[in-house]
């Protein structure tokens, strides 16, 4: 079946350093991916998305890289700040569904040390 997984449950970084959160997916037909940020007590908040016809997409302080060969994507956060502390989820649009269903990964908790 379809699955999306994250490599590390927890990532601890120093404030100001760059953070890299990795994610793998199983279905090579997946063509749309999203990174969400979830702060305590809140719902997932959209960060950035990427379609499979791209390898890289940049936002404000965030970059998503997609490697379709190894079915891997990563989220890079530049100059990590304390406000970036949260749980980060990657999600993939289910290619077997046309209803907008997303398959979520397990989540990586990013801890930013001052």
């Amino acid at each position, binding site marked *: 079946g379809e699955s999306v997984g994250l490599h590390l449950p927890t990532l601890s970084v120093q404030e100001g350093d760059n953070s890299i959160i990795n994610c793998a997916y199983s279905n090579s037909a997946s063509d749309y991916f999203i990174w969400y940020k979830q702060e305590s007590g809140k719902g997932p908040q959209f960060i950035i998305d990427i379609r499979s016809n791209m390898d890289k997409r940049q936002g404000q302080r965030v970059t998503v890289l997609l490697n379709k060969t190894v079915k891997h994507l990563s989220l890079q956060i530049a100059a990590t700040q304390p406000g970036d502390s949260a749980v980060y989820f990657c999600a993939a649009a289910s290619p077997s569904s046309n209803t907008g269903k*997303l398959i979520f990964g397990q989540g990586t908790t990013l801890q930013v040390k001052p």
Partner: protein
Amino acid sequence: EPEVTQTPSHQVTQMGQEVILRCVPISNHLYFYWYRQILGQKVEFLVSFYNNEISEKSEIFDDQFSVERPDGSNFTLKIRSTKLEDSAMYFCASTTEVGGNEKLFFGSGTQLSVL
């Protein structure tokens, strides 16, 4: 910025009781969803809803679950007879389009505790 709103934020109920979780999706969105997240686990898809009918549901979404859009703004999830294992955070989401651009907007969730 428009947002998905959910009420209540917390719901405590006794096992076997019915609960209704309420959501107001973003006004121009056409596709609506319920997801749930058991503590410490990943966010799981429950059901998608479009054009006043269910378009897809997961194996979790059994006969005890139902969804409804009773008017032009509300979208509800009903659990007919709650079980202990229904305790989770329930998220409503909505989006404008699907088919490769599923940028879902999520509400803040309802924490359901079944005692």
